[in-house]
């Protein structure tokens, strides 16, 4: 499988605090990769670095063969990297439909349109004119995913999409992922819910205290290995 994204020896900082140490990983074209780890392991920092929200060394991240580290998020979106941010971060002044529309206005052309997002999440079509903040948490998460899809990304980064949602809603959202990756889109899922993440992905990375402690095949990785990588015991 050809690599779409490679991260090599990435260090990332919040001010003086170093959140990532020498992280290297690769995401293949059309691959679904899970990144797991406990709170504060650096998962979100990693996604933010890839999506251009945290400054990095230029050559630490490359996408489709080009060095893109530290490029602005709005330019990375045009290249095809889209992040579903932790906590959803919808625009409260915009209606559901406007949130989706703005997602599609500056991205790439492709199969994802308003109609197709509504097809994927029919409940959003019923609530298209409501304020995004009036929706339930699960529905807001659907808007956040839809908004990211509208830019027709080649690489979709999902940060903790199950956070704060009821298990039945989480299962419902995860059940739609195959429809999203069906066109060959690469997907990175950052999760605390390990079972869900392993079931949905082909490969898995585990982060602990800013370092990669495990890389493996999602189906063959053992609970013991994962626990060791997760907790460092």
């Amino acid at each position, binding site marked *: 499988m050809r690599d779409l994204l490679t991260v090599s020896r990435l260090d990332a900082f919040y001010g003086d605090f170093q959140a990532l140490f020498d992280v290297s990983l690769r995401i293949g074209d059309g691959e679904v990769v899970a990144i797991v780890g406990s709170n504060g392991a650096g998962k979100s920092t990693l996604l933010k670095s890839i*999506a*251009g*929200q945290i400054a990095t060394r230029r050559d630490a991240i490359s996408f489709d063969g080009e060095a893109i580290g530290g490029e*602005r*998020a*709005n330019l990375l*979106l*045009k290249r095809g990297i*889209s*992040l579903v*941010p932790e906590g959803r*971060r919808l*625009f*409260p*002044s*915009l209606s559901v439909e*406007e949130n989706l*529309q*703005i*997602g599609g*206005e*500056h*991205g790439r052309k492709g199969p994802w349109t308003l109609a197709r997002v509504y097809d994927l999440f029919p409940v959003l079509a019923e609530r298209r004119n409501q*304020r*995004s*903040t*009036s929706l339930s948490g699960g529905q807001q998460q659907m808007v956040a995913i839809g*908004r*990211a899809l509208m*830019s027709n990304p080649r690489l979709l980064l999902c940060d903790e999409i199950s956070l704060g949602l009821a298990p039945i809603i989480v299962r419902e959202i995860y059940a739609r992922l195959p429809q999203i990756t069906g066109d060959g889109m690469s997907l990175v899922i950052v999760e605390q819910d390990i079972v869900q993440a392993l079931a949905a992905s082909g490969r898995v990375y585990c982060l602990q205290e800013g370092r990669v402690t495990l890389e493996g095949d999602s189906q063959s990785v053992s609970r013991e290995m994962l626990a060791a990588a997760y907790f460092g015991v």
Partner: protein
Amino acid sequence: MDWLNSILQGVLVGGLYAMFAAGLSLIFGVMRLVNIAHGDLVVMAAYLALVVTQALGMGPLASLLIIAPLMAVIGYGLQRWLLNRTLGDDLLPPLLVTFGLSVIIQNGLLEIFSPDSRKLQAGAIETATIPITPDLSIGVLPLVQFLVAVAMIGALQALFYRTAWGRAFRATSDDQSTVQLVGVDNRHVFGLAMGLSLAVISVAGVFLAVRSNFDPSMGPARLIFGFEAVIIGGLGNLWGTLAGGVVLGVAQAIGAKIDPGWQLLAGHLAFLIVLAVRPEGFFPKVQA
């Protein structure tokens, strides 16, 4: 009938104040920037109109075809190369920089145009009136000024709530970090907002210059009128801004009717009363 006449004039002047206020409210809404140089930019637009009308022999209103785009470009440049650098978590730098800008503009105008007061001549329209009753008539120019203000606010409202630009403005106002994740360059959006604000300012400047004499020192007072109209109307509501302008205009007219010296005082008093009784303004922005 005299009173009715005064109030009517006050309403029409309110249109001008609403124009001052709309530009101010727009940039505060999009980027939380309080532009202290706002009034001086209004006066600068008036002087630009003076130069254009004299050099090209155009009427003041026609000169807007040149001045509005020119001011919009100046606004975009000002935002991208200067004001964007001042924006951050701290509210003080943009205040200080626009205050400095205000001083520079005032003194620049003084240097170039001298302290003499000027006026733009609009021709016969200035004295034309529409009689309503034998005792009451409306000046055509104030009426045009008011209608332009209403049209401009209607257009801004439509831009904000019906177009892709408006979505980008509102989304940037909500969350300038996340908006970059949907491909919007917040620095560019800020530039567009300032450009739009200065285009609105240029219309206000031309009407100001046709209505009365102007000189380089009168900017800060226009800033105050704009502020007061914004606060009276309610922050972040464009139609409220129009109402705020009208309230201010009417209060000034009534004050002037009681005693000519009370004109400005009455406006400030109306503002103070609103601030004390209803600090969120008449039509605050609806929060989600």
